[in-house]
């Protein structure tokens, strides 16, 4: 077990790379990603777990990084939006105009990317359940729905 009682240097695996960072026990993962590692794709929107703008993947699952302490993420694989490279879901977001201001986009992308990986055969109800975790204020959500559906279709066609 790791015990961290004061600011300490720890190793965090982010986007496939081990990064040494200084953390205080109270630092949230969101804070460390943004302020220590300069990965500002994850956004603070409420810092209360309500809006999902800070969503990253921890061992492949969407986590609101404002609700996780950095020390809880030690030894896990963290994927942020900066780690997505030319993925189907990013292209789908661009093609479907699934964002306007772009502030909630990183969070939605991470949820969608995880869904496409974890449950590519998701039906409407499952998609809805997953994407209700995040809030978008600019779009009508339909555009985001179109992006995830086209992504899942593409994956299923390739696999089928």
């Amino acid at each position, binding site marked *: 077990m790791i015990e961290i009682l004061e600011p300490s240097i720890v190793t965090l695996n982010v986007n496939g790379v081990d990064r040494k960072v200084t953390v205080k026990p*109270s630092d949230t993962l969101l804070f460390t990603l*943004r*302020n220590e590692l*300069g*990965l*500002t*794709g*994850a*956004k*603070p*929107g*409420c*810092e*209360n777990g*309500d*809006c999902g*703008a800070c969503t990253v993947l921890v061992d492949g699952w969407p986590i609101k990084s404002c609700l996780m302490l950095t020390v809880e993420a030690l030894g896990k694989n963290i994927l*942020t*939006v*900066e780690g*997505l490279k030319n993925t189907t879901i*990013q292209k789908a*977001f*661009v*093609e479907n*105009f699934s*964002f*306007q*201001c*772009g*502030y*909630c*986009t*990183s969070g939605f*992308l991470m949820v969608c990317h995880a869904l496409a990986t974890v449950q590519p055969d998701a039906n409407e109800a499952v*998609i*809805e359940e997953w*994407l*209700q975790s*995040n*809030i*978008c*204020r*600019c*779009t*009508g*959500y*339909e*555009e*985001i*729905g179109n992006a995830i559906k086209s992504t899942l279709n593409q994956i299923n066609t390739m696999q089928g």
Partner: protein
Amino acid sequence: MSDTKQIGVTTVRKEAWDKVTGAAKYTGDTITTGTFHGKILTSTCAHGLIKSLNIEKAKRSKGVQAIITGEYLPALTGSIIKDHPPIARNKVRYFGEPVALVVANTEQEASMGVNLIEVEYEPLPVVNSISDALKPNATLVHEHLGTYYCPDATVYPKAHTNMADQVKIRKGNIELGWAESEIVVETTINLPGSDHLSIETRVAKAEILPSGIVNIYTSSQGPFAVKEEISKNYQIPEGNVVVHTPLVGGGFGGKAAIQLEPLVYLASFAVGGKMVVLSMTREEDIMTSPSKISTEGIIKLGATKEGIIKALECVYYVDCGAYTDTGPRMAKSIAIDCSGPYNIENILCDSISVYTNHGYSTSFRGFGHTASTFGIERAIEKLAKKLNMDPFDIRMKNAITEGNTSPTQEKITFSNAGNLVACMQKLKEIINWDEGNIRQTEKGTIIAKGISSFWKTSNSPTNASSGVILTLNDDGSLNLNFGAVEIGPGMKTTAAQILAERLKMDISSIHVFMDVNTQLSPKHWKTVASMTTFMIGNAVLGAANDFISQLKEIGGIALECSQDELEVANQKVFISHRPDIFISFKDLVHGYQYTSGMSIYGQIIAKGSYIMSRLTPLDRETGKGKPAVSWTVGAQAVEIEYNPKYYSYRLLRAASVIDAGKVINPKAARGVVMGGMSMGLGIATREEFIYDPKAVLSNTSLRTYKLLRFGENPKYAVEFVETPQIDGPFGARGVAEHGILGIPAAFANAISLAADDEFNDLPVSHETIWKKKTGGKYDTL
């Protein structure tokens, strides 16, 4: 214009890939070491005297650099009425108002400092509603209202009252209107306050350099307004204030207000000019920063038996909260368009702005028109019911058209307003109106449709202007620079499309300066009022024309021919009848070089500017005047499924048809309209500020302030009619706010029909229906 290549073609926004990779930078994303952090102590009391404020303990707290209170460089702010101290002084007027600002090395240390400040209030009676504000001998929110300076000369605050302004419309002869009316209806409406809820909370930073330059970084819709306000309030030469605004994470009007900028300026001043950042938490963004007005209205309509509207008498009360900001201007907007897009010859309207002890308000998408639309549309619905007329027919009969006049007595044309009848006809098809607007399903639920028309005009200062600068790169590509902020709708890309179209070139060779820097970018009034495409677009066309004439001048020398023979396309200047004889942009960047090596002309720098012309203030007694250049009209519908057993409903479909003049970027335009509709459904079904009896706002987080989430949205249909606005760029008119306008009314019309009751108070939740239908009595399960 049907053979155009760039206009009317869906174009991926310029910054799209930055936004899907986390590379896009917003104000809070530039994190610099050595920056101090500010934290606000907010008032826990909605109205009270500050009896004591003890900052001694906090001053000694670890990491604290400075604490400022209302006594520090006091100055009142406000774009209409200077009534607002950035930090409360002597008294607090709303729950959440800044009382002190702690500056410390870190955010945590600043928060700890805030917790150590001791403040004691002597509570005063609260003004907790519009009726509280207007009753005789009401408690005054501002005792010195009569003494405030009003930067806007057309606002009339009434001393010793809570009335900030009153706008009057007197058109035609209202007595005659009533005499001609065979039927009269009256409707009372109520739209509560609510929040913009941009996902990016407000954030601002400031530093003061030894040279005297004040750098302000802010998530603002009005960086040029910030520059002006900071300069005036703190006596800094305006050129010394440089405001930087990168991408903004949603605005919806809420970031047009100036709030954090004076605070960070003061904070930086207090610590010797070092950079100080102030970033609002969600709770602060809701309770401390400005929000949407609440509105009450009484609307009386008179009509003939055939359903021709003859008279409209209405009064609207706008609750601005503790400070006016742009509240009185929204009240004015309600008045100038109070008839909705209907031809009404006799109008009497009063629109009154009042102060209360609620959070203060600022511009919100629709700028008052959601309320005025709700008022007129609910009244028309009642009229239709009373006359036993089809809701569609009554609207068609009264639809405004060329030759009619507006409430401010401006002449309506197809160019300056669009074609409402065409919008309504299209809507009718989309929503299959002819199959009927109500039916019962086999499950026992009721499917009902409601419709609404709308119109909106801007209500800008009569000298609102825009500018554009074009420069060339050595590769022959262009830089497009203007001062509108990319808050989301994609206007930076729209402007590039307009430029590409005019220059007949590929949009990929147009680079848009995505940020705004008030020192580099030409002034743009504010990124508000759905006017950006119109204003910037016209300035872009001006700059393109300037660019073309410079190119032709220099091209005539290079190609040894008359300028009149030249054309510009595909980044080349060529002889129109011999396109093979040309010179490329890249060879003209620095002027023209003769074969001898000698050069002439120098860099090509083109400019364009636009100002809305011939606007006038309104006459104080009649409201006659020209507040804006144009309207946008449209029609909307909402279809719901109502379950009478549980008083619950589902949103099935929502549709909009808007006369956009010319759609420049179709997918982007549809998206922005859909987003507006989504926000309208939020206002219709759930969003509202709830104040307790002491005027304390009780829903300040996203747990208690509920928004529409994924899957709760209906199926959307968005269509456009294109009646060109002659003075718009390629005929385009504004559409960015409009999706919101008629949705609450259409929804209320649908639910009122389905539940067979009148729903005139928003939002209409399942609980409201249950209360209304049962009187709030619990049923046995």
